[in-house]
């Protein structure tokens, strides 16, 4: 064992990038790359666990430049607290998977980047990959690579930053990530509409998202009693939020009068519930994440009478809870989009590909990239296939 590579609870835990590089260069078997281990998504991977947990700490935070550079293993909670102290935040609102997947541990910022985790604000602000400015990573040969940087606009060379976002550790192990952050708003409000069926709700969300009033969340969510509420979120300076809430209610008056909530804790709780797919916590069944055009959401729902649903992104993101082992993909035929099996037992994830199968020509490119960055196939082998 190289110096700087300690073992924590049986997991390899390199203490810095150099130790990680040495470890990967000399690795002789498959590795399961983890941050905090809270997002076990994809095909089960056999291999020794390698955690980035100790690659932790803030390298740079400049609120005036909206820039944050941190070690990949830094706990997300630490990052969020640091930003909050300056009145800023990660704009893409990363989901916490623990409640849905029944995992414990500390989510890391590197895990967020590796899984390209975004939340309800995706509809307005963009996804995790849109705010990632730069990465450092160690590839499967033990070579340290940098791409991007810390500045907002950068087209120097190929964009490996986006390639790494959402690559689930299959191309390299992230050691450092740089993000663009944004100011947290002075006020956030939830407009809640009751009693709409799915078609009406999608129509409402579509109209809201096409308005000039910068809706930063649009979801259709079941409550504890199973009845759905259709939620819109507005954020910004207080006067502006009130103004836009008024205009929206006016434009959407055909759908009933919304209840408007501006109490900070309860607005935050409402959207945390959406972000983390709260309605499916501690409920039996497999969970699928289906990405479609927003207006196709009702069509998706009609094809699965046995499923429970929750809708985010104005209908563009459909969360489905189905009986264990359901192969849902084939029944989505003809609806443009894709489905990912996010929660199921290992046997199901062996049998049903959790990630959407790619067309042959695209699969050849993905496979080619993995072979180049990880020629020995040691980084989360098979996870995305």
């Amino acid at each position, binding site marked *: 064992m190289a110096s700087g590579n300690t073992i924590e609870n049986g997991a390899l835990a390199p203490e810095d990038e150099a130790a990680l590089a040495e470890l990967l260069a000399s690795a002789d078997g498959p590795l399961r790359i983890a941050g905090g281990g809270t997002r076990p998504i994809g095909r089960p991977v056999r291999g020794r666990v390698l955690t980035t947990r100790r690659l932790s700490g803030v390298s740079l935070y*400049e609120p*005036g*430049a*909206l820039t944050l550079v941190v070690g990949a293993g830094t706990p997300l909670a630490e990052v969020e607290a640091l930003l909050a102290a300056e009145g800023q935040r990660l704009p893409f609102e990363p989901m916490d998977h623990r409640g849905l997947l029944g995992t414990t541990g500390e989510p890391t910022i590197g895990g967020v980047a590796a899984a*390209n985790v*975004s939340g309800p604000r*995706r509809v307005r602000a963009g996804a995790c990959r*849109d705010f990632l400015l730069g990465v450092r990573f160690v590839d499967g040969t033990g*070579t*340290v*690579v*940098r*791409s991007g*940087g*810390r*500045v*907002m*606009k*950068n*087209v*120097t*060379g*190929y*964009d490996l*930053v*986006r*390639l790494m*976002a959402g*690559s689930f550790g*299959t*191309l390299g192990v992230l050691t450092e990530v740089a993000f663009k952050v*944004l*100011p*947290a*708003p002075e006020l956030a409000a939830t407009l809640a509409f009751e009693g709409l069926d799915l078609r009406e709700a999608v129509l409402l969300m*579509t109209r809201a*998202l*096409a308005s*000039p009033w910068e809706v930063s969340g649009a979801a259709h969510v079941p409550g504890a009693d199973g009845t759905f509420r259709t939620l819109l979120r507005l954020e910004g*300076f207080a*006067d*502006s939020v009130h*103004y836009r809430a008024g205009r929206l209610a006016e434009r959407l008056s055909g759908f009933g009068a919304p209840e408007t909530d501006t109490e900070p804790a309860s607005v935050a709780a409402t959207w945390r519930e959406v972000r983390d797919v709260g309605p499916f916590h501690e409920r039996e069944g497999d969970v699928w994440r289906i*990405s479609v*055009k*927003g207006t196709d959401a009702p069509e998706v729902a009609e094809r699965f009478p046995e499923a429970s649903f929750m809708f985010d*992104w104005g209908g*563009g993101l459909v969360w489905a809870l189905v009986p264990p082992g359901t192969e849902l993909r084939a029944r989505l035929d003809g609806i*443009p*989009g*894709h489905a990912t099996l996010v929660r199921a037992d290992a046997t199901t994830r062996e049998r049903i590909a959790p990630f*959407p199968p790619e*067309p042959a*020509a695209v699969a050849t*490119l993905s496979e*080619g*990239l993995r072979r*180049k*960055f990880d020629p020995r196939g040691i980084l989360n082998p098979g996870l*995305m296939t």
Partner: protein
Amino acid sequence: MHIPPADPKILARRDRIVAALRAALPEGAVIDDPAETRAYECDALTAYRCPPMAVTLPSSTEEVSRIMRICHDEGVPVVPRGSGTSLAGGALPTADSVVIGVSRLNKVLETDLDNRFIRVEAGRTNLSITKAVEAEGFFYAPDPSSQLACAIAGNIGMNSGGAHCLKYGVTTNNLLGVRMVLADGTIVELGGPMMDAPGLDLLGVVCGSEGQLGIVTEATLRILPRPEGARPVLVGFSSNEVAGACVADIIKAGILPVAIEFMDRPCIRATEAFAHAGYPDCEALLIVEVEGSPDEIDHQIGLIRQIATLHDPVEFREARSEEEAARIWLGRKSAFGAVGQINDYICLDGTIPVSELPRVLAGIRRLAEHYELEVANVFHAGDGNMHPLILFNANEPGELAKAEAMGADILRLCVEVGGCLTGEHGVGVEKRDLMDAQFTPADLEAQMRVKDVFDPKWILNPAKVFPLEASASHRRAAA
């Protein structure tokens, strides 16, 4: 700058290659008459010119695929071309190359306002995307200053930005999907109208790959509802440093303007002489534009005024009408033209951390003294994307080389302070030989591996982006 010499073996097969292209394409889609290929000898980086062996103007993805297959089989370099507005030489041909110009691919294929996207052929111009949806109250956000002419294909190749990307992001943040032709003629679809795509983010790496990974023929773009209104303010300062500090304070205050533009004294003087926008005579000025309803705009401008006041502005000018707003923008929009009236110039495109602004501006001043050249600074201050204009006289022997040397020094300075060589123009041939100032050999190697996968024979725009010594082994292995 060195371009590998034309391959005599390819030139020897010229007639056969052109005949194969003619046979594969409709009448009028292949140009090989030297009098006509000359029109394609350069892009907006006019200092470098070379007519290609032939130019093809396909009208469909399938035709692009046929061209690629022929060039792939013959081992002929291919230079993709949008509208030829690249400032980095992205569309500069070599004498043994075939240009694929996508200007005839210009249809709108699908407009879906409910799901807020538009699908277009990639030769369509940037501004015409907005034109196609503005009657319905939408717009396409990235707005490079060449937007009247530049093609979406080129925007994707260079991951273009514009003045408004502080709020709305650059091309990659507004691109949902592409249809593209790979080097061997295979047609693939990446992404789509959904808000995310499965698998590795190949779309993300294609965007900004400077035509080296494939030919994009169709694009699905995110369109946004237009805000109720927008209004600029102009603030003049007694020094660059103070203007820079004010930018940081505006951002820290939680205001997210759509644009924060910066001009220094040489630039202000040049534009005043040319455009007579009535700018104050001061060391530096900012143009800050905010959006929303009239009340929302007033509120934000009020906050900006409070912040600016703390920095002792020499002038704070608020647009109270459309006409006043247009006057504020007039100087900024004519800055490049104004400087071009009095001099030849090189336009740089480095990006720096906003906090390094004063230091970099001081560094540029020192370099200007050293090289005895004048520099006018105009740039997108909110995101640190600088466009120093180095003024020189092209008729004076040696001046261009001197200006280029100074440009290289400025870009090295940008990298030194934590920035990058190019924020929105791309590397092309212009910054190719500076890449090792920003990247280690391993960083460049990682990027070239991506090209190895997409274009194993290295036929797409092969002599660009990567320093020739660095790419030599890849190009040799591919030959």
